[in-house]
């Protein structure tokens, strides 16, 4: 079996499980500065699947590609710690405010620079929007088949990849020729942990922008070990059309946002005492709600 070239699309997302009141800007976009960030959970599953294929098919390389602000370089480092071969970051203020269509355009411009490839993997969806759109949109723009909701890769041979998909009401086993794009479901195996050695090796990996504020020690290291410098691609680097990126490339726009204010109704407040619970059960039976 020939080695494969895999690209993993990964996103740094605000931790939507811990959202404060100042999380949104008045224009309705996310105030990223105010939020803790995490590696999007489904993308970690995609990373594991890529590393798993690398284990199965000797010589396979895994490249992690992310788009985001400088802080997103954490995603690349995290990828290195867990075993990817290369990391590339697409970062430029002008990409900001992108919806899924503009995001897929931008990522695909980056993927073209990484060509040829056999497999593009990404999480099924990101927790900051849950849209699950970017994967299929990239597949369309790359003009390759897609296999969504992948749970396991069952077989890989010269000509095709066979995977099990997790659907709402069951499973499906499908085959696709290369190259193809797969989105990975959260029911697939969790990502392996960091290798201590890789953490040692890559903890000083930095983008050029980060290097501007780095200390002497790190700069010297980067001179000695060029692989530590994370490539950072701008609008010009990927040859993106300004009309198709960022806000101007995004057809969906937030017209308005409305805070949810819950108005209290007249609830009966009960304790966990036997008397209170028996009273409630009797009322429910009496009103034929239960029983």
């Amino acid at each position, binding site marked *: 079996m020939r080695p494969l070239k895999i690209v993993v699309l990964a996103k740094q997302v605000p931790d*939507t499980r811990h*959202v404060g009141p100042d999380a*949104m800007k008045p224009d309705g976009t*996310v105030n990223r500065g105010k939020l803790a960030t995490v590696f999007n959970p489904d993308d970690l599953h995609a990373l594991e699947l890529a590393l798993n294929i690398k284990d199965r098919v000797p010589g396979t390389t895994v490249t992690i590609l992310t788009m985001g602000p400088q802080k997103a370089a954490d995603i690349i480092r995290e990828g290195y710690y867990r075993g990817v071969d290369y990391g590339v970051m697409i970062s430029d203020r002008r990409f900001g405010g992108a*919806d*899924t*269509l503009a995001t*897929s355009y931008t990522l695909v411009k980056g993927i073209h620079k990484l060509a040829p490839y056999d497999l593009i993997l990404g999480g099924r969806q990101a927790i*900051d*929007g*849950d*849209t699950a*759109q970017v994967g*299929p*949109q*990239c*597949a*369309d723009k790359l003009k390759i*088949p897609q296999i*969504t*909701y992948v749970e396991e890769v069952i077989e890989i041979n010269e000509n095709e990849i*066979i995977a099990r998909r997790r659907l*709402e*009401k*069951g*499973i*499906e*086993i*499908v*085959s*696709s*020729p290369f190259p193809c794009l797969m989105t990975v479901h959260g029911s697939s195996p969790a990502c392996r942990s960091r290798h201590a050695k890789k953490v040692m090796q890559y903890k000083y990996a930095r983008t050029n922008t980060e290097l501007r504020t780095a200390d002497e020690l790190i700069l010297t290291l980067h001179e000695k070990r060029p692989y530590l410098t994370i490539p950072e691609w701008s609008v010009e680097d990927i040859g993106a059309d300004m009309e198709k990126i960022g806000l101007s490339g*995004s*057809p*969906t*726009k937030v*017209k*308005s*946002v*409305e*805070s*949810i204010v819950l*108005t209290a*109704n007249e*609830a009966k407040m*009960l*304790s*966990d005492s*036997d008397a*209170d*619970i*028996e009273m*409630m*059960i*009797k009322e*429910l*039976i009496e009103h034929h*709600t*239960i*029983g």
Partner: protein
Amino acid sequence: MKSVMVYCEVENQKVADISLELLSAGKRLAQKLGSPLYAMIFGSGLNGIESQIAPYGVDKLFVGNSMRLEPYRTLPHAALATEILKEEDPQIVLFGATSVGRDLAPRLASQLNCGLTADCTILDIGDHFVKKEKKEYKDLLYAIRPAFGGSIMANIVNWDMHPQMATVREGVMKKEIFDENYSTEIVEVDVNSILKEEDFVVKIIERHIKKSGVNLKDAPIIVSGGYGVGSKENFQYLIELAKLLGGEVGGSRAAVDAGYIDHDRQIGQTGTTVRPKLYIAAGISGAIQHRAGMQEASMIISINNDPDAPINKIADYVINGDVGVVVPKMIKYYKENAK
């Protein structure tokens, strides 16, 4: 001409419930716009399928009928839908937020270079003033969905790249017969001339779909647990209570993530939307994504040790306590008092 288009899912000659719900939602939008409602359906053995669709007020139905179109595969369905959408140029296109719709709609949005809003809970028609252009756009789709951590509802509009597309979860919209005798024009799609061999490169080798599955939507009573249930063992009490009351067990996304309960029992914006007679929320704080899926229950009981849990604000009974203490007592007193 302006029109509203619905992509209908079908399997074994039965149109999916979600699609009928979307037809009803689409009809309401079409009426507001004064435009016709169109639908497209691709599958196998579809002769006469219009009898299931016409009563929802569909003016024109595009039927792609071929053995090769069922079960659903991305590329052939995307190719047919693209062809029809380019030809008909509808204003609005709706898809179910299902395994199928969420696979197909983004691919089409990319192909047609248009906007797509996922998991809408409200669809409406309205105007929007674009400051930069000093121009008022009339009759746009308002695609409204809970967003970002659930503290807000966002109204998403798209005025410059058409069509305007949206997906909606099953159970969010109500299906309503528009007119039993509505007359629908059938347009047979010339499948063989549109599809190429390369549209069939992905092959389905095996397929196992549960026939019955969990039916949360029709359950009169739902006992639902969240992260606050605390353990899989405590979840057993909920299962016992549900069984005793003749109801079903559900859970919040946090409970699914914690492994307390299967994904197909998830209630909320990214799960099933339910409208039971009684909803018992045990250890559920009640983020808006969850409330969006259950707030229309006739009666809500919240069991929570956090008196400030948002769910308490919409509950009829609020029990301050631990799930592991309260639910066994409910079981006990139900057994003692039920006839």
